[in-house]
């Protein structure tokens, strides 16, 4: 069960183009599992930025010197993350977590291939460690546009059977994308399951590749969220249920980790025809109906 705590920043350090922030957040570390996320209030008091910012949990320490800590890794992309990057040790931070569904772990020792794009590698490092402890074979594919946006390759190398690196500009590793090397890698590792976190188009493609090879695939999606706790219906995407029916599913509570093969990737940003709840109200629009 998620909690809301007044956390305290322990440190913020730069890692390539990212910021790695460690937050003392008792009650969150203790129950978090890989793939879950936290949300942070940004902007101070009074803030003009009302929505909380969501970040995958990179790591937790259940018993730091100061109590449980949570680490996140983030890129500065706008005013909220810029504000976060300017925090200093001892600043206080309003933290909610752990939120969402974690990656589910294979029951038996299996071969797992973990595919991370940019900061999407963060939750996979932790996942990899957990999988290793359970005796799984772990292989990594980490990619980014350039070296400074690559995250976690050292950690990955410490635990994985193999680590493949791709960068789009070729500054390090193979020039190209994770999906260029994934097929070969899966074959070599005889992968049973693929875990992926990164940009949505990457997740779509990883899903296709994994499914083609008969592996199961779990992806952590990243949809814009207003509440992060399941009350607002902002973060939905079309997902096919076991009954074959498409539903607009909340990624904050029914995700962020999902079975990649259930997501209607090509229909994201639409409400596909036949989605549960479309029929009776089709075509009802008006100039003033945008809201509510």
């Amino acid at each position: 069960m998620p909690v809301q705590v007044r956390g305290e920043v322990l440190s913020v350090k730069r890692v390539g183009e990212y910021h790695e922030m460690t937050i003392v957040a008792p009650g969150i570390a203790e129950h978090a599992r890989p793939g879950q996320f936290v949300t942070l209030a940004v902007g101070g008091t009074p803030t003009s930025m009302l929505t909380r910012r969501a970040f995958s949990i990179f790591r937790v320490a259940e018993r730091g010197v100061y109590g449980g800590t949570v680490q996140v890794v983030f890129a500065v992309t706008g005013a909220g993350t810029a504000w976060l990057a300017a925090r200093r040790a001892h600043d206080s931070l309003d933290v909610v977590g752990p939120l969402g569904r974690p990656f589910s772990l294979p029951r038996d020792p299996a071969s797992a291939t973990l595919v991370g794009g940019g900061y999407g590698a963060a939750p996979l490092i932790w996942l990899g460690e957990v999988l290793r402890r359970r005796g799984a074979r772990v292989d990594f594919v980490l990619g980014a546009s350039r070296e400074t946006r690559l995250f976690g390759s050292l950690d990955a190398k410490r635990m994985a059977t193999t680590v493949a690196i791709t960068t789009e500009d070729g500054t390090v590793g193979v020039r190209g994308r994770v999906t260029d090397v994934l097929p070969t890698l899966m074959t070599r590792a005889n992968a049973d399951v693929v875990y992926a976190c990164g940009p949505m188009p990457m997740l779509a493609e990883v899903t296709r590749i994994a499914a083609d090879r008969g592996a199961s695939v779990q992806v952590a999606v990243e949809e814009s969220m207003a509440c992060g706790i399941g009350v607002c219906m902002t973060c939905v995407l079309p997902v096919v249920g076991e009954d074959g029916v498409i539903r607009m599913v909340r990624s904050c509570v029914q995700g962020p980790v999902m079975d990649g093969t259930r997501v209607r990737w090509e229909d994201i940003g639409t409400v596909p025809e036949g989605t549960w709840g479309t029929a009776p109200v089709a075509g009802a629009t008006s100039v003033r109906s945008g809201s509510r």
Partner: protein
Amino acid sequence: MAQMRVLPGQPDAAATAAVDLRTRLAGLALPNPVLTASGCAGAGRELHQFVDVASLGAVVTKSIMLAPRAGRATPRMVETPSGLLNSIGLQGPGLEEFLAHDLPWLVEHGARPVVSIAGESVEEYARLAARLRHAPGVAGVEVNISCPNVANRGLVFACRATDAATVVRAVRQNTAGSVPVLAKLSPDVTDIVEIAAACVAAGADGLSLINTLLGMVIDTTTMRPSLAGVTGGLSGPAIRPVAVRCVWQVHEAMPEVPILAMGGILTGSDALEMVLAGASAVSVGTAIFHDPGAPGRILAELAHALAGLGFARLVDAVGYAHRPPEPPPDAGAGSGTVTDAGADAPAEGSADVEAVTGPPQVRR
């Protein structure tokens, strides 16, 4: 006046305990005046992880329609300065599922459910009300009339007094007499008092003020509207001055009609502002996204603020700002006080609602 003091220290429990927070929305007696706003707390279940739903005045549920509804395409939300623009499109499970799962859950957990309903025709509203009549546990019905009327070129019911009244009448007629019907109005009208009066004349027992303002954001990188739905509803502290004005105007015109106020309430002081303007209770919406513990915090802060002003009962503060100003306290104006400029204002972090004028004795 710090308008958006978030997550301050908890006001002390003694002050809170000293104030009688009970209130009424027409026939509905509530233990306290802080409710959730429709669409901002789902059906209570997820919020319950952060705030005990039984501790709230009531839970106003996401507007429910007869049939399940997929809602709009994404993006459905964009942040705006001190606000939020949304276009959810009333995604929901439909009435039957709501009655089967959500309503019983709320009742079991000790909440008072105020069920918000939405339709696209007068008949749909009537059917929703009629079906709710036989559902156990409904504490009140809130009628969301900010929906396009398919029979009238998609014109929103809330925008025309006659349309609004027709819906309210249909709901009132199909609802048990003991269950209050609240009409939820849109601020996007030339004269909200006119719409309010029409709804009251049509049988509304109270009014919910306000729904979101119609707004829009264009993404300057894609050069297209940010929301898939093009326009959306603007909520949050940005709109609070508009909400306060609506509550003030309607209370001024019809002081006897109970008002449930919402629009940008983020702190106990904001809630008090609405109460002073004429609200008997308030709903917390967007603030929940910013701070899931908001409803509980706001209630505690409100109690603290009321106590600080010398109010023993919440109900005595309802509409208080409408009273003529009291004569200045005896230490008359030009009396040469050397209070340090500015320094007598409450310091950072303390409640900004400490009495400056003495407590309003008149009423105690």
